Structures are given as structure tokens and as C-alpha cells.
């Protein structure tokens, strides 16, 4: 069996779709390809799962951008802050167009990418009201340690980051140790931050993505006929999971709205400010995290109508 580590807990929309995909693959390949899926971080966080893949205990994982970037830094060009702003449709289109390019690099780095997902726009939630991008500087913001994009964002915008373990964040938001945090809407709901914060900044920071990858050697063990079946089913579920996610995110946003959380709107001039920060970050990250080639491809895709 191909052992796959997933962070999404059982019972979530994600997990249900993945389960269905695994069953369908098993049936369609007459039991030749069996995915054994470990949900809810039972094999550890994404970093642990990647380590387990490298030592050979697991053969695949469903990762978010941060971990994918350790396999193939180019994918992270999609996640540079303030690239797509509110435009989710364009972001998804660009992601789909970029995927073949990303897949080559995955291949070189010994991974087969079976499906690429959009996780959604990432938003700031805050305890204090902020007027514009620059006033976010005054808040103590929870950060997830070890992500070069986050580090660059904080450096470029001069933000105060407080690194905490995930379970610590909720209590810290209510006591004021941190005054802001960031996540996609489904994450905000899953971590229950919506019960502790007063504002959500309706100005997406970044577009977050994920992918289902398995090792090349696990892939090579599958017969060509079965490979095609697996690829097709994974592609089908990629669409299903993406639309499921989009719906979950919309529902989460609606739930946030229905609570007493105020949506903070920035004026249009902030988009310009954001573009300035984006340019700074791109300068810092190109050649370090992702290649100039990946950036060029992205800009070309974005220029298309």
C-alpha cells in the first residue's frame, strides 16, 4: 500500500473527499493500488510527514505550500503576498496553467504530483481595528515559524511576529499575548479563532495552495495502465476538492460574518501600497525560494486575459 500522511482530520470535507478518492482508486485498479491514509496529523505535522517520506516510512502526503516549497520552491511563487488580491478565479486559472511547469520540477526532485489544490485566500483576523496595511505594524501577530514567505513578509512590512505552537494561539488571542493571526477562512473556523477575534481584514494577504504528492519510486511501482487510472481519478477529485474547498471557504466566511466579527475594508489606494511590498518581497525571494523562471512564467500567465 502507498502510505499517505494528511493533516486534515477525519470528518472534514477534505478528508471525506480523499477517502472517496482512495476507495475509487482501489476499485478501479482492482486492488492493485491501495492508498493507506493517515488523517489528522496522526503521523505528525507536515514536516514530520515529509521526513517520514524521506526515510521511507511513508510514500506520500497532502501538503500545503510551505512544505511543498521544501520539495519544489517554485510552487511558492503562487503564494507571494498581494499577488492575486481578491481575484480567486484568476488565481485558480493561473494555478492550473502553472501546474505542468511545477510538475517537471517535482519530477526532478523525486516526487509525482497527482493533484494540485487551492486552499484559499489567507486573511488577517485582529483584536484591534486597523485602518490600512501600515497600521498592522502596531499589532503583535502570531507567526508560524520556519516559513520563508512569512518571514519575508514580516521583514518587509516591519511586523511584530510572535511564534507560538498552534494550540497556544487561541488562548493567546483571548489574553492579548497576540493581537492578530492569519489563516484561510476554513482554518479560522477550524481553529476557533472566530470566537476570540473582533475584526477580519477583508484584504487577502496571500493565495494558499496545496498538493497531493507521492514519491517517484512509489509511482514507478504502479503499472502504466494503473498509473493512467490513478492519474485520471486524482484529476477528477482535484476538481471536486477544489470546488468543495471553495464552498467551505464561502460558508466559513458567511459564518464569520454572522457572528459579531466586523469586516474591515481598506481603501483602493491600499492595493498600490501592497504592490510596493510585493515588489520588495519578490526581489528578496527570487533566486532564493523560487527561480526567476517561475516568476517569469507567473507574470506571463497573469498578463493573459
Amino acid at each position: 500500500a502507498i502510505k499517505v500522511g494528511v493533516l486534515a482530520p477525519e470528518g472534514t470535507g477534505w478528508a471525506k473527499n480523499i477517502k472517496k478518492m482512495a476507495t475509487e482508486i482501489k476499485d478501479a485498479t482492482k486492488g492493485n493500488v491501495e492508498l493507506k491514509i493517515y488523517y489528522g496529523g496522526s503521523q505528525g505535522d507536515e514536516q514530520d510527514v515529509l521526513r517520514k517520506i524521506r526515510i521511507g516510512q511513508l510514500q506520500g502526503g497532502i501538503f500545503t505550500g510551505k512544505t511543498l516549497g521544501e520539495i519544489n520552491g517554485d510552487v511558492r511563487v503562487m503564494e507571494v503576498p498581494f499577488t492575486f488580491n481578491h481575484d480567486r478565479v484568476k488565481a485558480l486559472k493561473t494555478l492550473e496553467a502553472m501546474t505542468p511547469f511545477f510538475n517537471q520540477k517535482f519530477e526532478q526532485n523525486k516526487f509525482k504530483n497527482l493533484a494540485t489544490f487551492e486552499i484559499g485566500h489567507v486573511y488577517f483576523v485582529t483584536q484591534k481595528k486597523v485602518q490600512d496595511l501600515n497600521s498592522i505594524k502596531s499589532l503583535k501577530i502570531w507567526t508560524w515559524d520556519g516559513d520563508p514567505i512569512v518571514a519575508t513578509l514580516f521583514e518587509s512590512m516591519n511586523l511584530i511576529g510572535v511564534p507560538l505552537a498552534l494550540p497556544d494561539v487561541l488562548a493567546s488571542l483571548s489574553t492579548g499575548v497576540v493581537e492578530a493571526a492569519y489563516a484561510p477562512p476554513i482554518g479560522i473556523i477550524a481553529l476557533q479563532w472566530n470566537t476570540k477575534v473582533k475584526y477580519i481584514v477583508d484584504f487577502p494577504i496571500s493565495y494558499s495552495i496545496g498538493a497531493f504528492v507521492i514519491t517517484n519510486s512509489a509511482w514507478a511501482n504502479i503499472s502504466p495502465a494503473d498509473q493512467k487510472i490513478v492519474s485520471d481519478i486524482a484529476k477528477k477529485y482535484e476538481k471536486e476538492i477544489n470546488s468543495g474547498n471553495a464552498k467551505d471557504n464561502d460558508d466559513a466566511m458567511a459564518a464569520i460574518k454572522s457572528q459579531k466579527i466586523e469586516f474591515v475594508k481598506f481603501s483602493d489606494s491600499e492595493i498600490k501600497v501592497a504592490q510596493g511590498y510585493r515588489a520588495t518581497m519578490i526581489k528578496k525571494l527570487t533566486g532564493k525560494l523560487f527561480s526567476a523562471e517561475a516568476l517569469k512564467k507567473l507574470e506571463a500567465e497573469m498578463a493573459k486575459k
Partner: protein
Amino acid sequence: MFSLVKKCDNIVEKIATWLLVICVMSMLIFSSLSIVARWFHHNITWIDPFVRHLVFIGTFLGGVVATGKGTHIGIDIVGKFVESKGWHSAKTAISRIIMVSSMFVLLWLIKSGVDFTRVEMEFSKEEFWGIGSGYLVMIIPIGLAFLLVRFFLVFLLSFEAKKEGAL
């Protein structure tokens, strides 16, 4: 012969002691520093991973001291029974069986640690101060090797006349 072994054992104990003192005082100072820094809206990002690795190092050093003191936690039912009967030679034999099997397991664990380190070195990524994770996971085989050395010294000392097994 035993005086040499004893000397080695004392050196190991001293090294572990001083490293532990440095470890714990650094944990205390740097954790406090990061709280204070935040009051002034500063964020020292390396403190958290640094302190975590200090605790990790301290785990093995503490284990080395516990080995010397013979205070590792175990289900000591047979040993206590034998002791209560006053069967000293049986007690010593049991201690030695324990130490030999512990050394064997530690060797196996060290192999596991070396394998893991080798893979991690290949994909090393910076954790803090420019130190790659490949170097940080070396704490595991090195720490285990330190434990093994201590077990071995205690084992040798168990042959000294009139000395009871330390475990």
C-alpha cells in the same frame, strides 16, 4: 584498572553536570528574555527553537546523570524481590543483564539515529543561527552515544570488588 574507569566516569559526570548547568541557565535566561522583548514590541525569532533544542540536549544529559545514579524508571519487580531475599550475586547478575541489554538497545538506537541524520543532512534546512536541521538532529546519535558510554562505564564498575550493581 578500576581507578582509571572511575576517573573516566567522573569526567563524564563532570562534563554532563556543567553542560546541564549551562543548558538550564540558558533556558531560563533566554525564555525570560523573549517575554521581556515582547513588552517592547520586539521579536527574537531564534529563541524558541534555540530553547527547544536546549531541552532536547538536556534530555540526553539528564539521562546520562540518571544512568550514573542508577535512577532510570523501570518495573523493578524481580530486582526488588531478589534484593529483599538478600541474594546479592543474583542481584548483580540481573544488573549486568540489564546493562548489557541496554547497551545493545542503545547501539541499535544509535544506528537509527545515524540513519536519520544521514537522510536529514541531505535535505537539511536552516532552523536558527544558520544551523541546518541536519546538524541539529545529530543531537540524537551523539546524545545516545554519550548514554552508551555511561552505561558501559557503570557496567565496568560493577565488576569492582564489593561494589553492588548500580542499577
